[in-house]
């Protein structure tokens, strides 16, 4: 029996979509029994949200005022305290999971498998290395827990319709006071979330300014799309960091990805290779983005984008 403890990601109010994707990955392990841990200040409604996912067998609700905001140094000892008896401990390969899971692995005295993209067996997985330029098949040692993060862009979300039991657990662990959350600055937006949007429009350095990025927002709104950006556009200050797509930003898999004024550095392409259809609009016909685009259009974005927006809106 494969017993998997999966750490849920949430913002205190709702469960992050990364959790349902991790459930799908975990369900591909042979004979998987999946328990999801919800560590929150008051996790009742979060726990019932998770309990409604198919394939989840049990939800473990760990309430503690210290869990009001996710701090790896505070969460890790609690996860270790409940990890006994599990063969696997999984989390998402989002910044939440990347921060937390290696701390859990080290406390358990094991190495971690980062970014699972496919499951070949209970201890055998595939993962990308070198910015996705190579895929390695790895095998975790037997006889110790397998700690891993799941590359969420590789998995669909588990469906609703489950009815797992919820167990409230109190955890006796020493929680450090050496790390304190101060604030979160987040560009709230009504647009679809970049990581889960079916359509994404991204802009690059060629936009030239933060003001010109309005062109991208308008096109995205006409399409009902989320908005992303290349590293160059973020570095130039046109848009905030949370919009960066690529190796060190977000790895996404929308049905439609439209790259505008993005030349297509390998690190950017890493973030979009699971997209359904990639459209590239760029004035340089030699730009590497055209080598992987399904539909390419060479030309001046300042002319093309408003035209495209008008055509879609009409």
């Amino acid at each position: 029996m494969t017993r998997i403890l999966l750490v849920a990601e949430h913002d205190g109010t709702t469960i992050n979509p990364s959790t349902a994707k991790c459930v799908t990955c975990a369900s591909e392990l042979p004979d998987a029994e999946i328990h999801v841990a919800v560590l929150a200040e008051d996790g009742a409604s979060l726990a019932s949200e998770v309990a409604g996912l198919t394939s989840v067998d049990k939800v473990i609700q760990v309430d503690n005022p210290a869990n009001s905001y996710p701090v790896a140094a505070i969460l890790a000892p609690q996860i270790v305290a409940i990890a006994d008896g599990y063969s696997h401990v999984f989390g998402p390969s989002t910044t939440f999971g990347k921060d937390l899971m290696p701390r859990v692995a080290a406390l358990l005295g094991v190495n971690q498998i980062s970014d699972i993209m496919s499951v070949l067996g209970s201890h055998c997985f595939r993962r990308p290395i070198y910015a996705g330029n190579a895929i390695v098949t790895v095998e975790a040692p037997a006889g110790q827990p397998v700690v891993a993060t799941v590359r969420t862009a590789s998995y669909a979300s588990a469906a609703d319709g489950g009815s797992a039991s919820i167990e409230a657990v109190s955890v006796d662990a020493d929680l450090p006071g050496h790390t304190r959350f101060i604030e979160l600055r987040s560009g709230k937006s009504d647009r679809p979330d970049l990581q889960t949007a079916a359509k994404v429009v991204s802009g690059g350095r060629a936009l030239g300014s933060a003001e010109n990025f309005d062109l991208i927002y308008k096109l995205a709104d006409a399409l009902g799309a989320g908005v992303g950006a290349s590293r160059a556009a973020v570095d130039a200050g046109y848009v905030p960091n949370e919009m960066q797509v690529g190796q060190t930003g977000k790895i996404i898999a929308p049905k439609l990805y439209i790259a505008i004024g993005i030349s297509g550095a390998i690190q950017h392409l890493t973030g979009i290779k699971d997209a359904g259809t990639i459209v590239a609009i760029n004035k340089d016909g030699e730009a590497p983005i055209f080598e992987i685009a399904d539909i390419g259009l060479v030309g001046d974005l300042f002319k093309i984008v408003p035209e495209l927006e008008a055509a879609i809106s009409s």
Partner: protein
Amino acid sequence: MEKILVGLKRVVDYNVRVRVRSDGSGVETDGVKMSINPFDEIALEEALRIKERGDAAEVIVVSIGNSDARQQLRTGLAMGADRAILVETDEETDPLSSARVLLEIVNREHPGLVLLGKQAIDNDNNQTGQMLAALWGRPQATFASELVLDGNLAKVTREIDVGLESIEVDLPAVVTTDLRLNEPRYVKLPDIMKAKKKPLEQIPLAELNIEASARISEIAFALPEQRQKGIMVDDVAGLVAALQDKGLL
């Protein structure tokens, strides 16, 4: 603080397009340009700026690897680090072992701050800093885009999926760097000459008595599935038609 410890990993250069060996046994590294992991270079730059502001007395760079890694340590010394430590081993260490080695160096040097890259661009593991912090029982501030020291505290801005998070950690702590923390300086020729005189200590890994960890074995290497070049359209009308064909509009 007295000391800052910075980890430098020798990796295939950022600009090299890596190739998987035809027999699937690994990634070709023979005759390939090697450099300091770019995130580690940012970590070193940050340490040097802290020292130049007068907030630290000494910057120590440490690497784990074979004697070739001396080259990257010399580059680190040329950038401005005061001394270097190479923990010598011919085998590539896994992240947990690397963290255990770094902890041993921490216990010898007692740095007030450890700065590491958030991930190495070869294995993309993103683990060592968090593991070191866990084993050390100290705070971690990963994916830092701003670091402000204030006495025994560090205020760190972290780049996370939903935006910018600020946390405060007690020192000593482990901070891992993201891309926008700073832009590393270029090394000048006279500094390369000067770096040759700076101390570089070599410690055989076996001397550190690191607890052995069970490795995750790498069984086979393959190329990713390649996307094919698609069609080119001439104008917006062509683009709209192509998107409608695919049912995307």
